[in-house]
C-alpha cells in the first residue's frame, strides 16, 4: 500500500510559551522551537505500522520552504521512504484551502492508496484533510483512532465521537483520513537517525511543476484572512482567593458546603 502523509511544521506547543510580540500584531516568533505537528506524527507512525503489516511504503509531504525540510527528514528518520517539499513563493501565506489545493495537485500526479493528515494543527482549524478529500473526490473520515486493513480496496476505521464512544465504518480506498492523537505510541526518533538522513536530497516541486494556478492558492486570493492576534481582555472570571493556604481552604470549604458539596 502506498501511503502519503501530509505533515506540517508548527511551533511546539509544550516547549514554547506563546505570547504576543511587542508590536501586538503577531505572536513572538524569536526563540520559538518548531517540530512536526503532533497529530501528523501519530499519522506517520500509523502509516509505518500499516506498511509493516501489508507492505508498501510511506511518503511524507509538506507545503513550505527550506526550514520545513527538517520535519520531512525527521519523519524519514522515523521510517518514511520518501519526502517531498512543495515550495513556491506563491505558496508562502496560503490558507488552509490553498494548501489543500496544492496538495491535491501533487496527489493528482501520483498514485497513493491512502492519504493521512493529523486532525488539526496549531490553528485548530482541522480543515485541510476534509478539503483535500473533497477536491480529490475521495471519501473522508476525521478523528480516526483505529485503522484495520480489510483488503486492497477497503479499510475498517474507528472515529472518536462523544462520550468516549467509537464509530466504526468501512471506507473504500483511495481515501483521506485525519488521524487523532493517541491512536498509537509513536516510535522514538533519535539524533542518530536524523543525522543519517541529513544529506538525502529532498525533491522540491513548485507551482509550475505541480500545475497549480498561483492565483488560486496565494494569500491574495483567499476568502478567509486572519487579521491579527490578540489576547482578549478578560471578563470577570473567577473570584480569586488570595489568603494563606489555610485561609483559602477554610473559605473554599465554606463555599462548597453552601452549594451542597459537603456531605
Amino acid at each position, binding site marked *: 500500500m502506498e501511503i502519503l502523509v501530509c505533515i506540517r511544521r508548527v511551533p511546539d506547543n509544550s516547549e514554547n510559551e506563546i505570547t504576543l510580540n511587542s508590536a501586538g500584531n503577531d505572536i513572538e516568533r524569536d526563540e520559538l522551537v518548531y517540530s512536526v505537528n503532533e497529530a501528523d506524527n501519530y499519522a506517520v507512525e500509523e502509516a509505518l505500522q500499516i506498511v509493516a503489516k501489508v507492505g508498501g511504503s510511506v511518503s511524507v509531504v509538506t507545503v513550505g520552504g527550506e526550514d520545513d525540510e527538517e520535519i520531512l527528514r525527521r519523519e524519514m528518520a522515523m521510517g518514511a521512504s520518501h519526502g517531498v517539499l512543495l515550495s513556491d513563493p506563491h505558496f508562502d501565506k496560503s490558507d488552509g484551502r490553498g494548501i489543500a489545493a496544492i496538495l491535491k495537485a501533487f496527489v493528482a500526479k501520483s498514485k497513493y492508496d491512502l492519504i493521512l493528515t493529523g486532525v488539526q494543527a496549531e490553528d485548530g482549524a482541522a480543515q485541510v484533510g476534509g478539503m483535500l478529500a473533497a477536491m480529490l473526490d475521495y471519501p473522508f473520515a476525521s478523528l480516526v483512532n483505529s485503522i484495520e486493513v480489510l483488503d486492497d480496496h477497503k479499510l475498517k476505521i474507528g472515529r472518536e465521537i462523544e462520550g468516549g464512544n467509537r464509530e466504526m465504518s468501512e471506507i473504500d480506498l483511495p481515501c483521506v483520513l485525519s488521524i487523532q492523537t493517541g491512536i498509537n505510541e509513536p516510535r*522514538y526518533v533519535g539524533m542518530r*537517525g536524523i543525522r*543519517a538522513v541529513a544529506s538525502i536530497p529532498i525533491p522540491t516541486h513548485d507551482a509550475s511543476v505541480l500545475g497549480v494556478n498561483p492565483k488560486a492558492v496565494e494569500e491574495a486570493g483567499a476568502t478567509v484572512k486572519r487579521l491579527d492576534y490578540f489576547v482578549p481582555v478578560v471578563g470577570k472570571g473567577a473570584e480569586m482567593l488570595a489568603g494563606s493556604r489555610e485561609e483559602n481552604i477554610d473559605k473554599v470549604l465554606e463555599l462548597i458546603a453552601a452549594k451542597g458539596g459537603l456531605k
Partner: protein
Amino acid sequence: MESSSAVSLVHSWLEPGRHLFVLVHLIGVASFTYIVWRRLVPLVRGQSDPRFDRPLARLGNLAKFWFGQWRHPRYPGAGVLHILIFIGFILLVIRSFSTLLVGVSRYLATQGPPSQIAYLYSTVTDYAATVVFICMLVAIIRRLVFRPARYAVPTRYGRVHTADAIFLLALIAVLMAADGLYSAAVAAGQFKVDQAGEQLAFLSLPWLLQLALASSSLAAIGKFCFAAYLVHEVTFYFLLCYRPFGIQFHVETSLFNVYFAKLSRGSLKPVRWDVPDGALDQAKSFGVKTFEDFTWKHMLDFYSCADCGRCSDNCPANKVGRPLSPRFLSIKARDYAFQHYPVFGRSSNHQALVGSVYSADEIWSCTTCGACEEECPLLIENIDKIVDLRRGMVDDGNVPQSLQKPLKALESRGNPYGKMEKKRGDWATSKELQQVCSVKTLGKSTANTLYFVDSVTSYDDRMQSIARSTARILANIGEDFGILGGAERDSGHEVRRFGEEMLFAALRDHNTGAIRATAAKRIVTGDPHALNSLRHDYNGLPPVEHISQFIARTKRAGLIHFNPVDRASDVYTYHDPCYLGRHNQVYDDPRYVLDSIPGLKRVEMERSRDRSFCCGGGGLMLFYESKEDQRMGVKRVEMAAEAGANVIVTACPFCMANIEDAIKVAGFEGKMSAIDLAELVDRQMVRNEWASSATSCAGG
C-alpha cells in the same frame, strides 16, 4: 609424596588399572579442551574490548579481589565459607595433580621435594581437604535448610537452582572424600606392611578414614585404594568438564574475569571500542541488539557469574519490585549462550535479545546506581551492558513515551523540562540573592571557578534554593566564581546512560565549548550526576569537584566557620548519593563537614557509604514510569527513621526531589525533613563581614 616403599605398595595396587587411568586422563583432558574451545566461540564473535593495558594495575586487582577475596566478607557467613573453600582449592592443586599422576607414572610419583616439605605440605592439605569437605556439608545444609533469600529464583525466571547447586557441592565433597580415602588407604596399607609410614594429620578426614580402615585386611585396603583412586580421578575430570556447563565455570574463569575487569569507575564504554567518535555516523547499528553485539569481556562476565545473588540483594530496583535483577541479566545471557552456542551441536545466532531474553521495562528500570558492581566478588560489570542494551533500543526507536518528551525537550531546549534556554540563569536574579552577592555570567566576564549548575537545579522551583545557597557559600568564602547561564546545557549524564549517545555528544560538545571559552581553572558543582559526567564523559576540562569537597577543604583551611545548630534535639543522617559515593568515592568530605557543625547529632543508616541505597535515580529516570511495588525513596526514608534520624541530609538535587517526595508518600510529613548539604552549610555558616556586601564578587 610417599616414601619409596609406600610407592611400591601403591604401585602394586594401581598398576592393574594403569591403562584405564591413562584413558580417563586422555578423555578428560580432550573433553575439557574441546568444551573450553566451544565456549570460546561466541567470544571470538563478540565485539572488541581492549583489556590488555595497565598490567600492573590488573595484577593489583588480581591480588586484592581474586587472591585476597576482598569482596567476600561483605556477606560474612557465605564469605568465610567461600574463603575457606578457595584457600583449600589453591592449596590442594598440587596435591590433586600429583595424585592424578601416581596412577600412570611410577617415575613421576617418586619425584618431589625433600620429605620435610612434602610432609608439611601433606599435613596442610590433609586439613585443607577436611575443611573443604566440612564446608561442602555446611553449604549443602545452608541451601536446604536456611535458604538465604538471595538464592531464591522468581518464578518468571524458571525453577530454583538448588538441585544443581547441591549436586555440585556433593561432588566436591565426594572428591575430597575420595582423596581422603586414597590417602587413608595408602597410609593404612603402609602401616600394615611395616608398622611405620607417613602420619596423616591428626583428626583430619584422611586420618579418620585411616582409623576406619585399620581393621581391614591388606587386600581389602588395596581394593579401597584402587576404588578411591578411580573415583577421585573420574570425579576430578567429571567436575572439570561439568563446570563449564553451569555457574561453577567461575572456578576457571574468575582469574581471567578479575584480571580483565574494568579499571575505571563512573565511566562508560564507548559505543564501539573499534570505532572512533568521529566515525560513529557510519556505524550500521548502535548498541546491543543481539548477543553477538556484546564484547568478549561481557560474554566472559556471563560465564563467570556464580549465581550468588549478592548483586540483586543490593539492587534497589529489585528491592522495590521492578522487573530488574542484575543476577539474572547474567544468568539469562549465559543460558542464551549455552543454548545458542552449545558444546554439541550447531550454533544459532543473531536473535534479538530485548523482547525475548530481556524485557524493555527490565532494561529501563536500572538507575545505574552501581550497587551491583560494588558487591560482585567477580567484578562483573552491569552498567555498561544496560547502557548498551538501551543504545540498541534507542536505535530501533523503542523508547517509552514517557521518556520521549524530555528527550525531545533536551534536543530543542537543552533541558528536559522544555524551558527556555535564556531563563536558565534566572535563579540567580532573585532580589534576595542579589543583596548578598551578584552571580556573574561567564563568557563576557571571566572567573577562576565555574559553578556548573545543571538543569534541575537551574529550573526546578524547589532546587533553585540549592543553587542560591551554593552561590552564597562561594561568595562568603570569597571565591571568584561565575555560571554559564543561558549558555549552559544539560550535562547529558542520563541522556548518555539512557542510550541516546548522539544527543549526549551534542550536549557535551556544546558545554565543552562554552566551558573552555570561560577560561575557568576549575569547576565546582552541587550535582553529582553533572560531576560524574564532567569528570568521566567529557574530555579536556579543568578539574571538577563537588561542593562538599570544596567546603571540606575550605573548612580544613580554616576559611569557613559554623554556628551551632538551633535545635539540639534534631538527629541528622547523611544519605550518600550514588554518583558522589560509589561512583566517585566521596564519602568522608560530606561527613567531615557535618561533623564540623557544632551540636549537630549525626547517625549512620545501616546502609551507608558504598552500601547506600539509591533514592530512585536522577535525570531522565525522574520521568520514567516503572512498574514497582513501592518507591525507592520511601524505602530510604524508612531506613532513616529506623536509624533514629529526623533530618536527612542529601548532597544531590535528585536525591532531594525523591526524598522530599517520599517523606510525603510515606506519611512522615512533619516528622521528618530533608535538607541539602549546601542549604545546611548556608544556614549554619558564619557570614564573613567583608563578604556581606554585594561587591564581593566583582563584575556582574
